[in-house]
């Protein structure tokens, strides 16, 4: 039984799209600073990249607060359950019109592969980019200033981490943009992230099978009902 469910709440959608715009903009300005492309002009690229970076950090601060206050962070806890089925689906099932092995629900929006990839973005790639980015910005040449202990001999290592992270993010975006089209229909995932609503399998049944977080399930269910 399918029903239309409000799956992405307003802040979540705002966060997602703001993050998307900022990351695209950071990539464009960043790769100009890196010397790969020419578009904004070097001085502007540096200026815009810094503004976008601060915006991103503010957004991340809000997003962290949201994740913890709503308990949504649990969505990203990795699980091996269904992992093999999910991989098999992307490699074979998808071509045979087989059903998605992981049922999407409000309480479990992500399949095991998504959980793993998004979690590594959240705890590895994004922190690497933020930390190396801040060091890049506030790096002040060797032996200047009084904090000898905080001396960084060269910007090289910082820059290499920052560049490597940028390539990873770009690769993620390419795959992510494609996987959007692998929902129930080609556009259903995109529509869901825009409107918040998606037609998914009946929720009642799923909640009963989800016994991982019974407490949160109740709370979430109530919240979803109000949203």
């Amino acid at each position, binding site marked *: 039984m399918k029903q239309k469910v409000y799956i992405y709440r*307003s*802040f979540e*959608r*705002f966060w997602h799209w*703001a993050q998307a715009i900022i990351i695209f903009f950071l990539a464009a300005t960043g790769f100009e*600073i*890196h*010397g790969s492309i*020419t578009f904004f002009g*070097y*001085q502007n690229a*540096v*200026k815009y990249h*810094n*503004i*976008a970076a*601060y*915006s991103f950090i*503010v*957004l991340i601060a*809000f997003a962290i607060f949201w994740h913890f206050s709503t308990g949504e962070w649990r969505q990203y806890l990795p699980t091996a359950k269904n992992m093999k089925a999910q991989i098999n689906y*992307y490699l074979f099932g*998808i*071509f*045979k*019109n087989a059903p998605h092995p992981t049922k999407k629900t409000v309480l479990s929006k992500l399949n095991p592969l998504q959980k793993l990839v998004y979690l590594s973005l959240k705890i590895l790639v994004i922190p690497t980019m933020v930390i190396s980015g801040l060091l890049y910005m506030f790096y*002040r*040449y*060797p*032996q*200047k200033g009084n904090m000898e202990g905080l001396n960084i*001999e*060269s*910007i*090289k290592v910082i*820059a*290499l981490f920052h*560049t*490597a992270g*940028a*390539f*990873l993010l*770009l*690769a993620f975006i*390419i*795959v992510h943009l*494609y996987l959007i*089209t*692998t929902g129930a229909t080609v556009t259903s995932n995109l529509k869901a992230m825009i409107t918040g609503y998606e037609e998914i399998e009946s929720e009642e049944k799923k909640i009963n099978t989800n016994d991982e977080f019974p407490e949160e399930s109740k709370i979430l269910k109530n919240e979803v009902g109000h949203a």
Partner: protein
Amino acid sequence: MKKIIISVALLGLVIAVSIGILSSKETEQNPLSLLQAKLSDKPAPSVDHTKFAVLKKKFTSPQQVTAACISCHTERAKEVMKSNHWNWEREEYIEGRGIVYLGKKNAINNFCIGTEGNEESCAKCHIGYGMKNSKTFSYTDSTNIDCLVCHDNTETYAKGNEKGGAPDVTVDLSNVAQHVGEPKRSNCGVCHFFGGGGNNVKHGDLDKAMFDGPKSIDIHMGTDGMNLQCVDCHKTEKHNISGKMYSLSSMNRNRVECEECHTESPHADAILNQHTLKVACQTCHIPTYAKANATKLDWDWSTAGKLKNGEPYEEDDKDGNHTYLSIKGSFKWGNNLKPDYIWFNGTASHYLLGDTVADTTVPLVLNPLYGSYQDKDSKIIPVKIHTARQPYDPVTKMLIQPKLFANKKGEGAFWKDFNWERAADVGMKDIDLPFSGHISFIRTEMYWPVNHMVSSKENSLTCTDCHSRENSRLSGMNDFYMPARDYSPFIESAGGWLLLLALAGVFIHGTIRLISSRKMKKRG
């Protein structure tokens, strides 16, 4: 609707916070107009020298003028006699060598090589009279001070050629003595624009075109601009003139810094201001030098001495620059040149007369300038590198100071007799150094920091002149990582492959999906 308002409000907040954080970092723009007003205010002289009785007479020798000067300015001569303009040397500490009295008496350059033995000619640019020989010249006789070469305001004073520093006989000493004042560009330029035996030969950024040139040559000195005089920046107290050239100095002191007027954070953009920690102002603001006339880039002494019909001759290029002189050898010239760039911390070393050369397979740098990325006092500066082949004794391993100038043939001077062995023998004997009788020519280099011919803001370098993969001005400086110029080949190719594989994977996966879904539709 409510959600949209909340979203827009949040986005607005994010933008407002980030703009707030960023704009607080920007510094106030340096008040250039205040600086211009300050420098435009030139007080009138407090005395009129035409009214002094002591100057209203016929002077028969320049020494009489000096005596008249000293009769009023009683203590000034003592100041002058402490200066390197007078002594042709200054006390310097050189790393690894200790304290030396460094100057034209003991250093060697790769232009006319050195003054020793050639003083009568070289002393045209000494602020004294009667310099026949630097060893016998009396550095304590104050009447030999040439006050006029620096303080003449008539622009009629000129030193004679090969007269040991004495003025040309045509100079009206009384008139000049009555019209003296603060030195002008014409006073300094008459020597400093012509170092190395011709206009702009040595420095490359000091050219006779700057006597009264436009600000397109130098933004500070342009007569259509601020029209600054040399001493406006080279501030002078008690005849101690600030600023010096590292052809003859070694220590990080008494330098003229742009920051004295322009401060350390002159830009409106905070990121540009951060550059001043490691990049000298000159690096971006002097994009080219030798803007008006050519400067000498290479001097090959080994070809000197060729004669036509027993007579020395010269060859010139289309601009009138000598490309060959029998007395000096072959030259290469250049104008509108991009400088070379090096790290410099304000200290230098020097080849001094009598030093032995360890390795002649690489060019010998006569004045190595010290600095590196890791050195906190170092900044990137623009330099002119002058190369040469100059005489060398392969047995004693010393550079040779030849006798070049003499009034007549037969004294061993190369410029009269064109005999290297004889000129080297006489020259080295004059400074009590051995000469084996053998001469070869070795490659040498000199580094000349470029400090003048500053361009306008609009004509200065922009980010991508250095921050770019190709044709970076700093492509030769490889001891640090610079954004845009540098990258890790590994990360670059790994990243490229990653993106390519992602695209290919997506493409192949998508294609198979498309084909299989069509097949399934067909099957129904």
